[in-house]
């Protein structure tokens, strides 16, 4: 056995249907959120169902933290109710003969060991379910339904949370309403999650790592930020504009100029004021085309955000006017889309100290970025 800090879920599985076959192999690291990404029909939901033990026809081997869930050669398959997995279905699947409280209690009473009341209260608070408790499930909105479904899954004290496009049936406004809850889940409950989605926005916002699938097979896997940036996967990830996703800490609010200062790799970035407490970590997205480079710290420019760093890579795009430059700002990577002429004129090459002029920063948290990217 290798030494791993986080438990792993190792999966090798095959299943065939009349017009679709899945042949999947991957070792999931069980911390944080892993997105299972791919176009509709890639087999993401099928894989999730196999992991949960809901597909009888699955062959192969699945091992969670040393525990064998499926070993088709030995004819062994742990039934769904003994896998300790929480599942949030696309269509919520609340029990219509029970009200919201009873739905939650259904899970709570069946939790692995005797649950306590505090846990119930904690989940209800985290998902703001208190006002819904006495409601009939049929009188809930789509977003409310999913919140209850997530709460119900959490109350089973799962060792792994599987979410099957929980936002798929919702419009943008509803998604914005529920995303913050899902975002907080991992931090508050510390349960590793596999999140199925075909939306780049959701993945960029929620996932730490991602596995890309098409036609029942794994195409790529790795850190979400890196995968989303990979040009060779652009056919699948779609029009995800080249850029960098960075994590920054809220440092200060300037009420006069309506600005918030965040810190990224020890360097300040100003952005339009956001209503977040000091110390919060936010995920920001800086598009490559909003970044310009200078070899000396520029003065008298309107751009307020100048980040110092070292060039790590310059990729010139043949037969075009453009090049992409990567800047290491002291731990975090920025990406700039500049002209090949600029590369030549400034003599840009790896190792050179440069100043990245960031014209625009946008929140990756859609709920807070309704005004779109702001230019400073």
């Amino acid at each position, binding site marked *: 056995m290798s030494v791993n800090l986080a438990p792993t879920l190792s999966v090798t599985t095959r299943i065939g249907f009349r017009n679709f076959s899945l042949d999947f192999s991957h070792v999931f690291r069980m911390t944080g959120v892993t997105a299972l990404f791919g176009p509709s029909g890639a087999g993401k939901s099928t894989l999730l169902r196999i992991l*949960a*033990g*809901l597909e009888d026809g699955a062959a192969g081997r699945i091992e969670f933290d040393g525990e064998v869930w499926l070993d088709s050669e030995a004819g062994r398959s742990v*039934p*769904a*109710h003994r896998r300790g*997995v*929480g*599942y949030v*279905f696309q*269509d919520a*699947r609340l*029990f*219509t*003969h029970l009200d919201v409280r009873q739905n939650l209690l*259904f*899970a709570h009473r*069946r*939790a*692995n060991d005797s649950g306590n009341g505090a846990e119930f209260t904690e989940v209800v608070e985290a998902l703001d379910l208190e006002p819904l408790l006495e409601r009939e499930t049929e009188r809930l909105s789509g977003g409310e339904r999913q919140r209850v479904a997530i709460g*119900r*899954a959490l109350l*089973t004290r799962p060792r792994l949370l599987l979410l099957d496009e929980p936002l798929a049936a919702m419009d943008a406004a509803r998604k914005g309403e529920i995303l913050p809850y899902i975002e907080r889940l991992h931090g508050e409950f510390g349960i590793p999650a596999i999140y199925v989605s075909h939306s780049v926005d959701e993945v960029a916002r929620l996932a730490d790592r991602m596995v890309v699938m098409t036609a029942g097979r794994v195409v790529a896997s790795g850190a979400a930020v890196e995968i989303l940036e990979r040009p060779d996967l652009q056919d699948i990830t779609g029009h995800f504009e080249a850029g960098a996703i960075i994590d920054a800490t809220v440092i200060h609010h300037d009420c006069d100029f309506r600005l918030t200062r965040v810190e990224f790799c020890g360097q300040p970035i100003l952005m339009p004021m956001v209503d977040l407490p000091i110390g919060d970590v936010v995920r920001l997205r800086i598009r490559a085309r909003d970044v310009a480079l200078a070899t000396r710290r520029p003065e008298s420019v309107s751009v307020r955000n100048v980040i110092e760093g070292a060039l790590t890579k310059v990729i010139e795009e043949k037969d075009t006017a453009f090049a992409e430059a990567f800047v290491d700002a002291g731990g975090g990577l920025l990406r700039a889309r500049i002209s090949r002429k600029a590369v030549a004129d400034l003599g840009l090459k790896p190792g050179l100290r440069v100043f990245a002029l960031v014209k625009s920063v946008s929140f990756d948290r859609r709920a807070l970025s309704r005004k779109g990217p702001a230019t400073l």
Partner: protein
Amino acid sequence: MPDLGPLWLTMKLAAVTTVILLLIGTPLAVWLAFTRSRAKPVIEAVTALPLVLPPTVLGFYLLVTLGPASPLGAFWVRVTGESLTFSFSGLVVASVIYSLPFAVQPLQNAFETVGPGPVEAAATLRAGPLDAFFSVLSPLCKRGYLTAAVLAFAHTIGEFGVVLMVGGNIPGETRVISIAIYEHVETLSYREAHVLSLVLLVFCFAVLLVVFAVNRRGGSRVG
């Protein structure tokens, strides 16, 4: 006043048959609703046979199968000391088979309408198969159960041909209401036939009225 014995015997037979049918009809209907087995159409056809077979044909086969000369009949005689044919027990067996589709089909419809979704959800919430059945599937199929129970009950009350073949006409044992009415008419006792028929008519109407009223109040109908 005519003898009301046949009426009580009929109720008893229908009640016992209904309970047995719900007990054996449930697993059968669950299997039919959720299986992907290729044997499904065969089992479905067998289950539906009593719908189309003339009661006399069914009764004839039952008479042969349940009679003391058959292995099953002989076994029954050895164990209980009495014959399955021309006895109340034999009538119960015959009624269960005769009314089987009336219990299984509404249940199967109800299970299919609800679908595998809620049971899967229950499994991911730590509910084992039996737990999921009792706490999720069956409550969701309440109406299907009501329909199945009422149809099985009413259909058993109305049976005539099978009873005549298997049970004959023994007062207090196999003389159910339909047989009694037939005999009253044969002996030209129209008054007694009228009373029993009217009782049956009113009863059946009342039962159906209750079912439809309940179904309407529930809004959506399952089964």
